[in-house]
């Protein structure tokens, strides 16, 4: 169940400066656990003390915001692309 994960610049210190990595996970929840095993410390940056995804971070599965899917329970399939993107201003 390998998925591709795009890592934002502020987290690349955990991934040896890699902007994209391969990781295992059947849901976003599961992916967070494997990310933590592979890159210790990364989960605390992505989730608050209660384990919920932080409010200024966005997760996308194959370009779709997981809040339009099943949130952290969104199911992942092999070959999916998960993008982690901090909130940005603009217009």
């Amino acid at each position, binding site marked *: 169940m390998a998925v591709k994960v*795009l*890592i*934002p*610049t*502020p987290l*690349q*210190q955990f991934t040896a400066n890699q*902007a994209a990595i391969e990781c295992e996970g059947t849901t976003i929840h599961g992916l967070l656990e494997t990310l933590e095993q592979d890159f210790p410390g990364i989960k605390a*940056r992505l989730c*608050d003390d209660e384990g919920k995804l*932080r*409010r*200024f*971070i*966005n997760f*996308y599965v194959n*370009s779709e*915001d997981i*809040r*339009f899917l099943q949130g952290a329970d969104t199911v992942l399939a092999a070959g999916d692309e998960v*993008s982690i*993107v*901090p*909130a*940005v*201003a*603009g*217009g």
Partner: protein
Amino acid sequence: MRHVTIHLYWVGKPLQTLPNRQFALLAFFIPILPHEYPPMTLATNLPTTQTRSTAATFTGLKCKECGADYEAKAIHVCEYCFGPLEVVYDYSALRRTVTRESIQAGPNSIWRYRAFLPVDSDNPIDVGTGMTPLVKANRLARRLGLKNLYIKNDAVNMPTLSFKDRVVSVALTRARELGFTTVSCASTGNLANSTAAIAAHAGLECCVFIPSDLEAGKVLGTLIYGPTVIAVHGNYDQVNRLCSEVANTHGWGFVNINLRPYYSEGSKTLGYEVAEQLGWQLPDHIVAPLASGSLFTKIHKGFQEFIKVGLVDEKPVRFSGAQAEGCSPIAQAYRDNQDFITPVKPKTIAKSIAIGNPADGVYALEIARKTNGNIESVNDQEIIDGIKLLAETEGIFTETAGGTTVAVLKKLVEAGKINPDETTVVYITGNGLKTQEAVQGYIGEPLTIEPKLEAFERALERAQTLGRLDWQPVTV
């Protein structure tokens, strides 16, 4: 310079793929009457080298959520909690050094407030941005039943006719200071226009990302400056995500991503100017459009800073926000009394403010609530009516974002949520010539005649008849 190799391929591409690309382009070139321009600043000749000032008033960046401190580099989110980073200033130094007189002696542009902006060069990029008219809107006020209404008219901001020139002037000045040679952004149109134009002026390489379905005027108004334009099949939120992914690997200065803390500070000048133009006092109530929520929060910050350093007296100012019904996640959260924003997929003619996942939405909510303001939304027809109302009463042709703001102003007045005696300032942030598609079919047509006096007399009579019919509530 890797990006230069794809330059020629992309420059022509988006225009070719746009439907109706000829639509309204000619009219885009109709010159704006000279009197609509704000006075030019004198300092438009930019030296090619920059000089560092010893009097920088900002000291670094701070996370708005957890308070972690950072150096003033090209970073925009906190490493620990992903909260947005804010510029930190030495307000006691500002209090000592800045006076009303020192500001008034500065250039006739946003750079008269340089001490409150996060740049440290003595010669920032000054293309005459800012100091746009604050118009006493008597006719619109009378129509709505208000007594003290003002329009802050950034439809004539320089050089690209939207408030974005403020934020981009700051962002690109800072980009140059940080050593970037290429600048970029994700945009709903106005930001792309501004980034491309000011990058051209400053001699910076430029690559911008826009949704592929933007209005023709916004696309052309970017392409003319010769940047690389990437038109993405998707809405702004998707463009923004892609742009963030590009930022992970390309070491460019992205004005709304890694330069965001500096960029967004430029909007504070909309607060400073209104305070100065009102005779160094704050209004009672402001109404502004809400897209990402950044402009709204920065106008608030601008007012607070002027109070903090003693340039104006303290006073409560009510903040009301305007959204288009087809993209109103902040208005929805306001109505539902929630303190979080549920993202939406935009569907509205107000493309410039169609941000379904607004980064600063929660802060905009907080401000509207704590200042006893409101957040309201209006539908597409009300937006068109708002554009026409402003044009017909005040001679200001705004784009859809301005139509939204005027329509929300009207709605709030009708609901009794604006006191007629309040000094109310409405922020008009963009120009109608860029979004002509929105009003096409909703305005009159010229009376086309043969070059004969008799033909003119007939046409005039017809026009007057049509004019009278407008006043009668009957169908003909």
